[in-house]
C-alpha cells in the first residue's frame, strides 16, 4: 500500500486525489461508467472501493483506531466531490456508511472498530432498516419485536424500503424492545445471512431493485450488537439524522453538478430551457454552500439539531429542479432515446426526493415548529 502524505486541507487532498485518478489505469474502468442494472453496478463499483481503500484515499478522514488514517473528516466530503468531478459513480455503500458509521463511532465504537475496514473496502455492505408497512413518517409506531433469548434477542416483524437491502450482509435495524412510543425502541446490527431472515427486493418505478422488504421470524441478535443502550433507539436514530439529512446533501450536490455538466456536454441540450437550467443550478449552489457549513460543523463534532431539516428541504428543491431542467433541456430525446435509459432512471428516482429520508411535509413541520417556534397541532 502506498503511504499517503497528510494533507493541509480538503482542497489539497482533492488535488492529489484528482492527479491519482487521472494516472491510475485501474480507475479507467469507472470513469463515465453507467451500469446495465443496479446489481451489476454494485458489483463493479466494489472494485473502485478496493482501489481507494488499498491506496489509502478512502481511509483518510476516519479515526485510526478503527482502520482509518485519521485527519480532517472533511476529506471524505472532498473525496466524493472529486469522484463526481471525474464522472465516477459513488457506490451506494459509501452513501450508507457515511450515514451509519458516524453513529457507530459514538454509540457502538466496538462495532466501528470491527467493521469499518470491510465496509470501506466494499468487502461487505450494510442496509438501513427502519420503516415498516405501518410505520413510515410515523416511525415511532414501529412494531418489529425484540424478545430476550439467552445471550441476545430474537427479532420478529417486517421491515420495508430498506435501500439496497438485497445486496447487504448486515442491517442496522430499529426494533421494539419495550413498551409503546419512542422510549421502547432499540437499534441493533443484524446479520442478514441467517435462518429467520428473508429479504425480498422491491422493483422501483425505474425498473431497478432500489429497496427491499425484510421479513423477520426469530432472527437472532447477540448482546454485543446493540447500537447505543437498550431503549435508546429513538435517541440514536435522531442522532443519525444529522448525517442522513446534513452530510447526504453534500454528496448529492456533487452529483447534481455532474449531471448538469453531462447534459450540457451532450450537444442535445436546448438553450430554450435556459431559465429552468439557471434555476436548477442556483438551487444546487444553495444546497452546496449550506451543506458545506453542515459538513464543517459535523467535522468539528458539533451536535446539530432540527435545523438539519433545512438541508433536506434545500436538497428536495435542488433535486427536483435539476432533473426537471435536464428533462426540459433534452427535449423528446429524454422520452424516446434508448441510450438515455440510465439517465431516465435517475430522473424517475428523483421524484422520491420529497419522500425518502423523511418526507417534505415532515421536514417542513419540523422547521416550522422546532426552528421557527410555531405552535404544535393539538
Amino acid at each position: 500500500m502506498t503511504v499517503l502524505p497528510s494533507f493541509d486541507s480538503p482542497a489539497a487532498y482533492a488535488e492529489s486525489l484528482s492527479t491519482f485518478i487521472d494516472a491510475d489505469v485501474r480507475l479507467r474502468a469507472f470513469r463515465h461508467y453507467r451500469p446495465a442494472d443496479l446489481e451489476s453496478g454494485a458489483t463493479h463499483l466494489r472494485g473502485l472501493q478496493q482501489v481507494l481503500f488499498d491506496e489509502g484515499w478512502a481511509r483518510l478522514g476516519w479515526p485510526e483506531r478503527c482502520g482509518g488514517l485519521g485527519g480532517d473528516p472533511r476529506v471524505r466530503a472532498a473525496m466524493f466531490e472529486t469522484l463526481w468531478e471525474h464522472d465516477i459513480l459513488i457506490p451506494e455503500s459509501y452513501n450508507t456508511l457515511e450515514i451509519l458509521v458516524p453513529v457507530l463511532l459514538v454509540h457502538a465504537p466496538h462495532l466501528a472498530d470491527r467493521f469499518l475496514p470491510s465496509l470501506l473496502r466494499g468487502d461487505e455492505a450494510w442496509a438501513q432498516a427502519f420503516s415498516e408497512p405501518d410505520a413510515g413518517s410515523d416511525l415511532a409506531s414501529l412494531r418489529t419485536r425484540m424478545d430476550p433469548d439467552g445471550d441476545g434477542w430474537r427479532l420478529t416483524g417486517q421491515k420495508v424500503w430498506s435501500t439496497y437491502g438485497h445486496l447487504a450482509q448486515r442491517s442496522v435495524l430499529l426494533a421494539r424492545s419495550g413498551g409503546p412510543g419512542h422510549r421502547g425502541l432499540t437499534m441493533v446490527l443484524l446479520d442478514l445471512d441467517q435462518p429467520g431472515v428473508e429479504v425480498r427486493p422491491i422493483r422501483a418505478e425505474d425498473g431497478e431493485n432500489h429497496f427491499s422488504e425484510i421479513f423477520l421470524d426469530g432472527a437472532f441478535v447477540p448482546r454485543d450488537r446493540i447500537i447505543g443502550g437498550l431503549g435508546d433507539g429513538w435517541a440514536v436514530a435522531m442522532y443519525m439524522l444529522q448525517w442522513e439529512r446534513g452530510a447526504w446533501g453534500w454528496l448529492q450536490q456533487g452529483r447534481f453538478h455532474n449531471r448538469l455538466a453531462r447534459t450540457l456536454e451532450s450537444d442535445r441540450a436546448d438553450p430554450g430551457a435556459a431559465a429552468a437550467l439557471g434555476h436548477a443550478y442556483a438551487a444546487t449552489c444553495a444546497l452546496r454552500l449550506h451543506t458545506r457549513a453542515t459538513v464543517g460543523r459535523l467535522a468539528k463534532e458539533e451536535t446539530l439539531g432540527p435545523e438539519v431539516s433545512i438541508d433536506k428541504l434545500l436538497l428536495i428543491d435542488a433535486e427536483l429542479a435539476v432533473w426537471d431542467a435536464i428533462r426540459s433541456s433534452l427535449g423528446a430525446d429524454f422520452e424516446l432515446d434508448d441510450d438515455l435509459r440510465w439517465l431516465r432512471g435517475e430522473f424517475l428516482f428523483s421524484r422520491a426526493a420529497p419522500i425518502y429520508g423523511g418526507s417534505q411535509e415532515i421536514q417542513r413541520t419540523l422547521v416550522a415548529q422546532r426552528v421557527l417556534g410555531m405552535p404544535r397541532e393539538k
Partner: protein
Amino acid sequence: MDGDTLEMLRASLEHVLSQDGGPLSERLGALGWDEVLADDAPAALQVLFETKGRTLSTADAIGPLLSGSIAATLGSPELTAATVVLPASLHPERLSARFDGERLMVAGVVTSRPVSGEPVVLPVDGGLEGVSLAVTPAGLDWSVRPVEGIDPSLGLLRVDADVVAANVTWTGAGKAVGAWQGAATQGRWALAAELVGIANHVILRAVAYAGERIQYGRPIGSFQAVQHRLAGAYASVIGASDVVAEAAVSASPWAALVAKALAGRAAETACTQAQQTYGAIGFTWEHEFHRYLRRTYVLDRLLGDWRTLEREIGLQLHATGDVPRIGSL
C-alpha cells in the same frame, strides 16, 4: 467576526439606520465604521445591508458602494463619493447612456440627489467594447426628478441629461469594463443581502402573527397548511443567504449573479407566503406588509431581477458548457 461581535454590530446598525438625517456615510462614521470595514468588510457590509432590509431603511447605501467600488478599481479616489447613474432598465448590461461624438444623452436612475458640481459617473454603451465610463460634474444640462413608482419611500430619482462633449471626461481607459462589472458584482451581493434581510423579517413577522391569530379556537400557526408555507420559504431564504455570504467573501461576479437570483426569488416567495398568512389584514394600507412587498420588487429589479438572472445563468452555462462549483470545502 465572531457571533457576539456580529450581534453588537447588528444592534448598532439598527440604531443608526432607524435615525433620520444626514448621509449614511456620516452616520456610520460616528460608529467607527472604517475600522469595522478594515476588520472584515464582507461580513460588515452583509450585516449592514441585511439590517437595512429588515428595518426598511431609506438610507442610500448602494450608491456609495457602487462609486466606492469604481473608485477603488480605477485608483481614482476623487470618484469615491461620486453619483453613479444606473441604466433606466436597472440592468447593468442594458445601458441607457449614449454618446454620438458630440453629445452624451443620458436617461437613467440615481439612488440619491447628485450635489451640484460633484462628479457623476455614467456607464455608457460602448458597442462592441462593452462599456465606457464618462464623468461629468452634476448640474449641467440635468433634469433630476423624484421617482414615485411602486416604492416612493426609497427616494430613487430619474435623471435625464444631454451633456455636451466639452463637459465629459472619459475615465478608466481599458479598465472601464472591469470597473463597471466590479461595481455590479458588489451591488448584486449587497442587494441580495438586503433582500435576505427583508425576507427574514417578513417570515418572522408572519410567524408571530400566525401564533396570535385565533380561528376555530386555535392559533392559525398550528395548522400545517400555514406552517408549511412559511417553513418552505424560510429554507429558501437560508439557502440564499449562504450563497450571499460566499459571494461577499469571494468577490466573484458569478457568485454574486447566483446570489442575487436566489435572494430575489426567495424574497418574493417569502412575501407571497407571508401575505397569504396575513389574510385580509395584510392587504390594508395600515399594515406594514405592503411596504416590504414594494421594497422587494424594486430591490429585485435593481441590477437584474431573478427571472432574468436565472435565464442569464442558464444561457451562460450553455455557452461555456462548464458547471462551476461555487466555494470550496
